[in-house]
């Protein structure tokens, strides 16, 4: 898990990986090496305080060179919330995340449908599974050119879609996408906050089970 100044979901994400039997470790944004992980997760939070634009400065952190190389080599990379914003700013995913339609910071459970299980982070779900996952964001509205949106739909690269209500005005109710090579995934909801029965929701476990329990690529 990559840690930027202002990331705040890093420890929870390490813990989620541990909960499903994996080993997670933190990498500081100023490091230049990832230490040969099986997967990289860019966690939620407010990297650089979201100054200028969310993820705009974090994408130039030294570690992002290694993250980009890892992604270009086919390594699994997941961006959660702020992580999704960073990956879009870095050009590893198309489009951008803008201010929520209703101008409110949303922190509540939302209903999402898993529309593709053909990614390293959704393979443990079943297609069309409907889950409740928490969101916590002020800039979660996904936008992209009409060409990009058409391409995402045509290539089945919408990974998660808001199922009953669209909380932030995202185009096509998009809550998560993947790249053309299907190894980089970005999602706005927080699966790491839904891995324990004690919080009443374990629907996020399968995101981590997908990558931890899958055969090594």
């Amino acid at each position, binding site marked *: 898990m990559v840690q930027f100044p202002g990331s705040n979901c890093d420890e929870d994400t390490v813990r989620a990986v541990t909960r499903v039997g994996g080993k997670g470790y933190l990498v500081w944004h100023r490091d230049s090496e990832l230490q040969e992980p099986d997967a990289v997760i860019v966690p939620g939070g407010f990297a650089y305080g979201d100054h200028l634009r969310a993820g*705009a400065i974090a994408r130039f952190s030294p570690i992002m060179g290694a993250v980009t190389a890892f992604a270009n080599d086919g390594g699994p990379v997941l961006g959660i919330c702020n992580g999704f914003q960073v990956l879009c700013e870095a050009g590893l995913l198309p489009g951008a995340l*803008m201010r929520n339609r*209703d101008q409110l910071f949303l922190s509540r459970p939302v209903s999402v449908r898993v529309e593709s299980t053909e990614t390293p982070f959704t393979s443990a779900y079943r297609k069309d599974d409907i889950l409740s996952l928490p969101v916590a964001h002020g800039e979660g509205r996904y936008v992209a050119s009409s060409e990009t949106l058409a391409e995402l739909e045509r290539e089945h690269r919408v990974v998660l879609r808001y199922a009953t209500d669209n909380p932030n005005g995202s185009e096509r109710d998009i809550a998560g996408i993947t790249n053309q090579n299907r190894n980089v995934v970005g999602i706005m909801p927080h699966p790491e906050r839904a891995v324990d029965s004690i919080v009443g929701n374990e629907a996020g476990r399968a995101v981590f089970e997908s990558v931890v329990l899958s055969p090594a690529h």
Partner: protein
Amino acid sequence: MPRFKVEVKVMPRPTLLDPEGQTVEHALHALGFHGVKGVRVGKSLVFNVNESDAENAETSARAMCEKLLSNPVTEDFAVFVTEIL
């Protein structure tokens, strides 16, 4: 080397929903400014730069916009350069 003052204006692209602009517009109407339409909210960045001439200052500023200051998916930018004498 001459010094130039650069102002970069970054605005949300016209085809995109700008909820901040809408909020400001409603607030203006509530204050009695009923003739206001089409409010959009962006940002202005101001800095000084040393360059050989105004054209180079502008080229450099545009490169900064393309690299960092503006996101081409969601924003348009405009660069204004004046020499500091």
